[in-house]
């Protein structure tokens, strides 16, 4: 069995409207984030992955299983949609239980799995209340619980952090990490870029239905040649360090940090800079830290998709 989620030359058109075009992906285990502006094709990609829509062209395989085989596919795939929709009158427990029964789980197993899922999202006390009385964050959590309830290996979550307060967000992120640590595939779409940056093992950047970049964010950043790498150097004598850096040909720009305790270097050859750090640190310059300043999702997003579309 293939251990990846594979898209081979996949396109989806809704009549004349482009969903996604010529997508080639091989998604490994871990947390993968889909990032892109509204209408970029994130939900379409998730719907394709879960077999909810058929590709107009190309082939999709989820861990070796075709997406047009729902009986097998949904044994190991869980999906939480971004829509805030629940059947009327159900309690949180009934919501999860009924969908497990719909998946074919016998009564006792469904009850046990529903309770476990509710515990995982920390909703035990609210489980017997109707969903109509839930806050937005609670609804989001119960929806996550239904996606996780049958213990799927592939969890596809459309905007799972929307509407959650900071505490609930950190709990959910811990949950995603725990799933990923077990060898599961957690596919997330999110607009909250700094959280994507923190939680993702790899990202897929989408724009207008095309994948503009994929992989680990640092690798993606290294591929972007037209934008010099930015490095923040914290040191005791930034002006002296800047003077020394200007002697090196790999330096494009060096600016003193506004707090006066460091400088921001722009370079087209970060590796040469890192090799030269020891020499730079001589002559009494004490370097406290060196951190890349633009190898996060936000920067890569700005470079590849455009600053006007950035969602912070």
């Amino acid at each position, binding site marked *: 069995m293939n251990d990846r989620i594979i898209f081979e030359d996949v396109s989806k058109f809704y009549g004349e409207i482009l969903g996604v075009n010529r997508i080639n992906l091989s998604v490994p*285990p871990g947390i993968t984030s889909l990032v892109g502006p509204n209408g970029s094709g994130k939900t379409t990609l998730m719907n394709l992955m879960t077999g909810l829509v058929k590709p107009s062209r190309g082939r999709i395989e989820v861990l070796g299983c075709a997406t047009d085989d*729902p009986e097998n596919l949904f044994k190991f795939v869980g999906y939480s949609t971004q829509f805030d929709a629940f059947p009327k009158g159900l309690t949180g427990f009934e919501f999860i239980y009924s969908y497990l029964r719909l*998946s074919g789980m016998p009564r006792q197993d469904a009850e046990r799995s529903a309770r476990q899922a509710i515990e995982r999202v920390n909703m035990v006390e609210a489980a017997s209340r109707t969903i109509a009385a839930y806050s937005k964050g609670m609804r989001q959590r119960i929806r996550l619980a239904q996606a996780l309830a049958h213990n799927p290996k592939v969890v596809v979550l459309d905007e799972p952090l929307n509407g959650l307060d900071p505490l609930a967000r950190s709990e959910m992120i811990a949950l995603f990490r725990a799933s990923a640590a*077990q060898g599961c595939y957690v596919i997330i779409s999110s607009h909250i870029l700094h959280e994507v940056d923190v939680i993702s093992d790899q990202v897929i950047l989408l724009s207008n239905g095309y994948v503009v970049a994929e992989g680990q964010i640092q690798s993606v950043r290294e591929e972007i040649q037209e934008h010099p790498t930015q490095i923040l150097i914290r040191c005791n004598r930034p002006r002296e360090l800047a003077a020394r850096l200007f002697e090196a040909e790999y330096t494009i720009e060096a600016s003193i940090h506004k707090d006066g305790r460091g400088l921001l270097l722009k370079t087209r050859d970060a590796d040469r800079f890192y090799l030269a750090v020891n020499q730079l640190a001589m002559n009494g310059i004490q370097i406290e830290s060196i951190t890349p300043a633009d190898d996060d999702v936000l920067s890569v997003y700005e470079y590849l998709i455009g600053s006007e579309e950035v969602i912070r």
Partner: protein
Amino acid sequence: MAVYRRSYRPYSGALTPEWSRFLVLFRYFRRNLFRSKIQTGFFVLCFFYPIICLVIIYLAHSASFLAKLEIPSQLISIDNMFFFRFMSVQGVLAFLMTTFAGPGLISPDLANGALPLYFCRPFSRAEYVLGKSAVLGILLSQITWIPGVVLFAIQASFAGASWSWENLWIIGSLILGSLIWIAILSLLAMALSAWVKWRVVAGALLLAVMFFGAGFAQAINAVMRTDAGHFFDVGYLMAAVWMSLFKVDAGRGISAGEAWVAILAYCSVCLWLLLRKVRAYEVVR
């Protein structure tokens, strides 16, 4: 690079048969339906006429009691016409029940974008439609052909084997006539609610299809001096089908065959509309 423990354990228990899963939808929606006191009250009211029919059957076989009331026994005849009238009354009640219960079956799911929740598991669009229509199917069966068959059985037990044998075809007419009516009502209600996604409007549209359809049919017939207007009147078409099934003289108008074809065409159009709308995604243009 993350290091994964690969300690994941999938669910490995038994699964229920695929064919039985649509019943989950049926159970939940039926329970919701009877949370409404009006709905429950109306459902109980639907058994009023079958009870009257039961009394009539009893009276028809109680000559001494009729004599006491000075009612000539010839006045009460339990035959195909009796069961046709039963079907007509219960058919109207079934329609009213559908206007209560039908529009709320699909429109909330569509209005809230909940369909992906159903389809992201081993559950197809056909099973979804089947599950939803089972709610109406079973509910309407309880007020149409099931009491009809019970009445036939009671009449048969009073009238004896020869009457039963001669009139056995009435059971087929009761069941087939009811099922085709249930099918058209369910499909109309679900198609309209899927199309407008608004429960109240869908209910109003269902009433409009029946009543304005009948009015429109009469107008066409009067203006164009034809019977073709009846094709717009679902109630008339159904009555024509029932008349043929219960061997009741239909008089003028369109033939039973034409009515059957028209009813099947209505069902096909509703099914087509339904399958166009019941999808896991919607394109926002």
